[in-house]
């Protein structure tokens, strides 16, 4: 260790683009051409990935747990739906940003409640906020359409050029581009001094405060940003499916997110994206095999992942590739064991 072992050095090294990341995005783009008949499912994965990335921002970087992230998803979804339905803002991209801002506003307001408590309190507060919004959406059925949801949403072409088609091609590319742009932004945020200060807060809030980090203000800021992300995910949902019904606020939606992060891991942004891919694929595979009992098998897999531990699973899965690399490249391929993610 002759290199100067200071924080700045590590931070810069970490912030560099790695080969794996480039491969990831190339694969994501390639999937569009590899599976041209599966746009709707892939769009669903992209949405879920974005949504999971949003919670990763607060959970993985700032240590805020939430069971009510669907609140922001729902606000984004209904904002986008209402804007399209009543012709307020018909251009989808602008509507998307506005819907995200609506969710962001809610995030900012509720963040004051959330930062007050610690983990258990936060779970309850966030859960409560989501339930509150769901009940509101149900009782103001004149605006939201109640249980029937918003009916008759028709989306205008994006930027007036790209119309949404039946097979979800436009929707998929649109979602993927939005995801990528927001990912770049998130990447910038978490590698900035601001992001590093969040990590400090996550590790030890007291100490972070002692070295002069304004803990509460940082938490409010990241919570608000995460709400924006979730709102965008919700708006994408409405825009690509032309649907918005009460289930956008459903508890299952928030709970699914945590499952996604359990699969993918937290604190490196890709956890949510990879988790979303694996989670949806598991659902696809199991619900094709057994449409009645697929939830059981998902449960089994999740229990297995938690019991065995992701690290060990990785080692098993990577045993063969590692062996190959060792043979071919003639060097010992170290398997990456994730650290500090044992949730």
């Amino acid at each position: 260790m002759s290199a100067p072992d200071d924080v700045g050095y590590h931070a810069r090294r970490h912030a560099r683009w790695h080969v794996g990341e480039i491969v990831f995005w190339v694969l994501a783009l390639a999937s569009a051409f590899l599976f041209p008949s599966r746009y709707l499912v892939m769009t669903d994965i992209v949405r879920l990935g974005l949504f999971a990335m949003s919670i990763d921002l607060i959970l993985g970087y700032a240590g805020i747990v939430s069971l009510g992230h669907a609140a922001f998803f729902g606000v984004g979804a209904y904002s986008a739906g209402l804007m399209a339905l009543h012709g307020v803002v018909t251009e989808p991209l602008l509507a998307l940003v506005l819907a995200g801002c609506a969710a962001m506003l809610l995030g900012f307001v509720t963040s004051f409640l959330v930062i007050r408590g610690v983990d258990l309190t936060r779970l309850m507060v966030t859960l409560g906020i989501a339930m509150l919004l769901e009940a509101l959406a149900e009782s103001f059925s004149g605006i939201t359409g109640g249980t029937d949801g918003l009916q008759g949403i028709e989306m205008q072409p994006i930027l007036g050029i790209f119309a949404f088609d039946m097979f979800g091609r436009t929707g998929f590319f649109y979602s993927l581009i939005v995801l990528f742009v927001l990912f770049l932004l998130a990447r910038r945020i978490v590698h900035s001094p601001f992001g590093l200060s969040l990590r400090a807060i996550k590790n030890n809030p007291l100490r972070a405060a002692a070295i002069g980090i304004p803990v509460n203000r940082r938490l409010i800021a990241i919570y608000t940003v995460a709400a924006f992300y979730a709102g965008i995910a919700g708006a994408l949902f409405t825009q690509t499916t032309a649907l918005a019904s009460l289930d956008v606020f459903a508890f299952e939606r928030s709970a699914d997110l945590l499952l996604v992060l359990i699969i993918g891991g937290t604190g490196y942004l890709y956890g949510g994206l990879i988790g979303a891919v694996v989670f949806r694929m598991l659902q696809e595979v199991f619900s094709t095999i057994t449409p009645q009992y697929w939830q059981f098998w998902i449960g089994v897999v999740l229990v297995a992942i938690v019991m065995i531990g992701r690290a060990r699973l990785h080692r098993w899965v990577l045993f063969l590739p590692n062996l190959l690399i060792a043979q071919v490249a003639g060097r010992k391929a170290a398997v990456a064991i994730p650290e500090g993610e044992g949730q």
Partner: protein
Amino acid sequence: MFVADRKLAWSLLGAAAIGALALMPARAEETFKIGLIVPMTGGQASTGKQIDNAIKLYMKQHGDTVAGKKIEVILKDDGALPDKTKTAAQELIVNEKVNVIAGFGVTPAALAAAPLATQGKIPEVVMAAGTSIITEKSPYIVRTSFTLPQSSTIIGDWAVKNGIKKVATLTSDYAPGNDALAAFKEHFTAGGGEIVEEVKVPLANPDFAPFLQRMKDAKPDAVFVFVPAGQGGNFMKQYAERGLDKAGIKVIGPGDVMDDDLLNGMGDAALGAVTAHIYSAAHPSQANKDFVAAYKKEFNQRPGFMAVGGYDGINLIYEALKKTGGNADGDKLIEAMKGMKWESPRGPISIDPDTRDIVQNVYVRKVEKVDGELYNVEFETFKDVKDPGKTKK
């Protein structure tokens, strides 16, 4: 700390492998494929299970080859969530190349699939959802279940004629519930009846108790109830707990609340409830006796009206395919389905050639004990009822 990229690469490999497996399109075969999309999980699961059972039973009885084509049913669970329905329908049409999509447990699900049916020129056979407007959303939609106005108008007329003057209503707050309420109200008040209390309950996990108390205080002659299939048992339990049966307040309504698969568990509080509906397991025809016996033997439970919707739906698809001589073209199938008539377990039914909606008898029934079990015993029949939601226009 700084090994995230490697881990990332490996995770990617794993994810890609699973992805490739799952996304591999199934190969197309020389078969006639039916994509069945119903809720098999969640709150509406009983609907999906009944339909699935009925279709399995029908195919067991009638074989799986029609006009030289092998029938294959692909079951998909949508959990009654419209976005899942839409994804499933799209996948079935594009990848599995299904010839017909069928099922649809709830109205939003049926509506979500409508544009896909239109664009794909694929018949959509609605076997459960009961809102009037559904068949107007695509020229490819055919319904074999029922519409809420069909039964609600009839019970409205019946109530007026049978000395019921004041009615409190309790309906689930979603499209079918609002359809039922509007249809009932129109016919009941036109006949001189009075609605003394109007309550809408949330669809998801309703607690009826506070509403029932209000109903009891309003002292109506009867309470008009619509809750979707599956919630009737819970309603009747709370109805009895609050003592509405002892206060002499009758239950009337479309027959969903007295669904056959739950009826026997409701207890004596249900006795005397009068509902108008399209199917009763006690319907006194040979076709129905055979159907009930076969269904009971196979699945060890009584079929409800959802099962009949599925049974008739698959029959419609079989017969249409026979009529086209095995031609699976969507337009030809729809043409063949229009005007088709047959004897269902529920009685004689037909498909209205103009609206593609079902025309059927509506029966007024009363809950009675037959051989120690509760049944809806039919005592009045209204023949060939079209959907009043459309004939009005």
